[in-house]
């Protein structure tokens, strides 16, 4: 007897693992891969699912919820506030204009009733968060102007779903029965209450809770808590009748300035990825090929019409907000498809008898196909823009300009914010340099937060965490961890994964310096060297040296010691040779330093000392 659930999971994962790398290899992006895999295993393909697609889709929508939570984590309230104009300006105009044009087409061109036209146009005006964001993210465009605008529009649509869902029953009441929904004021009060609960609860309860769980140092428990948190926020919002994705987004925003942000991100990322994958597969599986075959003409027209219409409106909005043409195209393409909300909205509307099954299926198919086409259109658009650019040399100026516009300030990452890293970090921060700090000791972070530092929790030798901390575009990585093996491990990892990243590395002792040189890092700093030199200098002062001479002695010693390291490095693998050479060098050191000392100092010609020998001070003429 084979377990049905395991078989399904096996089917999904198997299909994904075959088709996604294939699609990526062909340059189509993962979304196309998932959609194709879904179509193949779905009820209109090989029929491997065993459960209705809608069930799976419902489950997989949690991937969208997780995605919104993760986006929320990136959106500190300050950034969100900075985007307010885009969210409500561009978002509102996009939704209203697109819906209005679609309504006009449905009502007057096709001749549908006003009610039906409202339902369909509103459903189609929204764009897919899953497809749009995923496509932008895979192309590294999420932080570009196009990415930010797309995100703003999608965020507005997430909010807009609430009133749209509220309107549908009202539409139904005009034609059939009066809605028995609760009074508006109650709904609004409940909503406001829940937002307050999430914001206040998040600040006062979640952060200490995260800290307690982090202190147990059980990673799976932390991951569990992260999932619990997202599910909790989603459920709470569902209870007051709002899109769970929006609730998760809100929870993410609340935690955006938390020191555990990076840890949450890297823990939830794989869940999000897989669930979104399942979601895309269920979209693929829901495409009814029979319907497709029967209505090829109408569907083609609908898909092209929808994407062109939405694209044109988006492009125009992009131009109005002064984006470069290239950015406008990306903005338009990334949001030209229909939304997963359309499935929800149409299902809901069908329940209210606002649309009949045939039209619903057609619209759903249109949306699914438009989602499928998005990555392909993106590729095509990029290809055309590439061609256009190479053909006109003038474009190069625009792209340089664009590059500057798209480049945010490059941060410095400091891995390890203990006794050593703190000094480095405070010095950089006090010079106004943006610093991302990573440390894995919860008690440490706790203490530091009191001092106004912003430190993130996690083990810096984990690649996902380095990505999250921005290692891909950081200026510099300062490695200040106090564990020899971890330092070496992180250096190796960083050199392999981020060959462009400059490294400045704390070394435990001389042997560690050699070890690090072996893997190609010369910018090393022995952790005790600097302060021991300072102490040595003060020891000389305590013995009666003038400060200046003590300082000179320190400089001389340091420079000799660094020379020694260069020489001894060549021998360090050979223990016996190393020892005898090191001993010999120590014996010579006094004589060498004496030489150096005579080299410096004030020339007898200018001093009150007696002249030594008769060349001193002799005039050349």
């Amino acid at each position, binding site marked *: 007897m084979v377990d049905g659930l395991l078989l399904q999971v096996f089917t999904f994962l198997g299909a994904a693992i075959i088709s996604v790398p294939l699609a990526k290899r062909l340059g189509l992006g993962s979304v196309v891969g998932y959609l194709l895999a879904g179509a193949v295993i779905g009820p209109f393909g090989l029929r491997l699912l065993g459960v209705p697609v809608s069930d799976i889709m419902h489950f997989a929508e949690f991937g969208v919820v997780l995605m919104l939570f993760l986006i929320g984590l990136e959106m500190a309230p300050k950034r969100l506030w900075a985007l307010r104009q885009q969210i409500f300006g561009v978002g509102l105009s996009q939704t209203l204009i697109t819906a209005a044009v679609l309504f006009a087409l449905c009502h007057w061109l096709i001749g549908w009733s006003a009610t039906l036209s409202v339902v369909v146009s509103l459903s189609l005006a929204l764009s897919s968060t899953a497809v749009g964001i995923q496509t932008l993210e895979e192309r590294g465009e999420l932080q570009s102007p196009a990415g930010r605008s797309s995100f703003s529009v999608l965020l507005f649509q997430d909010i807009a779903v609430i009133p749209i869902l509220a309107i549908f029953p009202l539409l139904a009441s005009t034609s059939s029965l009066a809605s028995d929904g609760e009074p508006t004021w109650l709904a609004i009060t409940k909503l406001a209450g829940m937002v307050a609960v999430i914001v206040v609860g998040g600040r006062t309860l979640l952060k200490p809770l995260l800290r307690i769980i982090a202190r147990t140092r059980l990673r799976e428990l932390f991951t569990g808590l992260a999932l619990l948190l997202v599910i909790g926020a989603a459920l709470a919002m569902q209870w007051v009748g709002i899109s769970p994705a929006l609730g998760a987004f809100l929870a993410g925003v609340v935690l955006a300035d938390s020191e555990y942000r990076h840890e949450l991100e890297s823990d939830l990322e794989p869940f999000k990825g897989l669930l979104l994958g399942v979601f895309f597969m269920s979209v693929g599986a829901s495409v009814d090929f029979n319907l497709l075959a029967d209505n090829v003409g109408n569907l083609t027209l609908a898909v092209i019409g929808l994407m062109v219409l939405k694209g044109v409106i988006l492009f125009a909005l992009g131009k109005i907000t002064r984006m470069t043409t290239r950015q406008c195209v990306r903005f338009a393409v990334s949001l030209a498809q229909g939304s997963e909300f359309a499935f929800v909205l149409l299902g809901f509307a069908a329940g209210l008898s606002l649309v009949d099954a045939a039209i619903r299926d057609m619209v759903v198919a249109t949306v699914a196909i438009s989602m499928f086409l998005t990555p392909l259109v993106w590729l095509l658009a990029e290809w055309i823009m590439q061609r256009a650019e190479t053909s006109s040399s003038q474009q190069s100026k625009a792209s340089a300009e664009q590059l500057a516009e798209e480049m945010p300030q490059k941060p410095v990452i400091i891995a390890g914010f203990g006794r050593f890293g703190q000094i480095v970090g405070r010095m950089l921060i006090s010079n106004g340099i943006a610093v991302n700090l990573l440390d894995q000791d919860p008690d440490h972070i706790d203490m530091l937060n009191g001092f106004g530092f912003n430190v993130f929790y996690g083990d810096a030798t984990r690649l996902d965490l380095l990505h999250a901390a921005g290692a891909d575009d950081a200026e510099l990585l300062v490695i200040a961890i106090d564990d020899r093996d971890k330092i070496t491990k992180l250096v190796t990892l960083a050199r392999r994964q981020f060959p462009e990243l400059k490294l400045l590395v704390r070394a435990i002792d001389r042997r560690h310096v050699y070890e690090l040189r072996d893997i190609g890092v010369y910018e090393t700093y022995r952790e005790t060297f600097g302060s021991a030199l300072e102490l040595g200098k003060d020891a000389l002062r305590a013995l009666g040296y003038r400060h200046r001479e003590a300082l000179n002695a320190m400089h001389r010693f340091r420079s000799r010691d660094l020379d020694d390291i260069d020489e001894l490095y060549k021998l360090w693998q050979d223990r016996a040779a190393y020892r005898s050479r090191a001993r010999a060098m120590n014996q010579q050191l006094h004589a060498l330093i004496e030489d150096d000392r005579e080299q410096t100092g004030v020339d007898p*010609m200018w001093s009150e000392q007696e002249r030594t020998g008769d060349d001193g001070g002799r005039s050349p003429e």
Partner: protein
Amino acid sequence: MNRILIQFAHPAFERSTVNRALVAAASNLNGVEINDLYEHYPDFAIDVEREQKLLLEADLIVWQFPTMWYSVPPLMRQWQDDVLQCKFAYGKNNQLSGKALLVSTTTGGSRHDYKKPALHGAPVNDYLAAMRQTARFCQLHYLSPQIVYGASSYENREDVEPIAEDYARLLLALRECDGDWERLAKIEDLTAEEVQSHG
């Protein structure tokens, strides 16, 4: 081809306009090495061996600095103390003997400021007497100094460009000349054209 070493000392290079342009112009030239003292020895711990080696390799030594309190910046003074040692820069076996020294300096005040007694009192050239004597003492041929007055009045890179170009042309001419420094030291107004017509 003569080898030129520019000993450059500027304690606040990041805020300079004129010196930045001069250094930029010189840095494009082959056979011209720029030794940025404040970048190499921010803590005044001068590597004497390195410095002496650089001097020995050069035919013409340029001291480029902003005039501060009628003198060189402190690190350049320290450099003189540490590097210009007996048996190297003067005395028996002076190893610098016969090379040339060119002072290239900028001043904050205008040419006019250097005439007013209450301001700076005398032309910059008068304050360079110590440089002149240092050169003579070290048996270096002292070329006519290059002085850019009123450096603080240049705000834009474009305004400095002609000066920087002149400087680069002069360095080029000195690089290509026959190396008869004794004769070149007699030129009063040292320009690229003058150098070319003499050598």
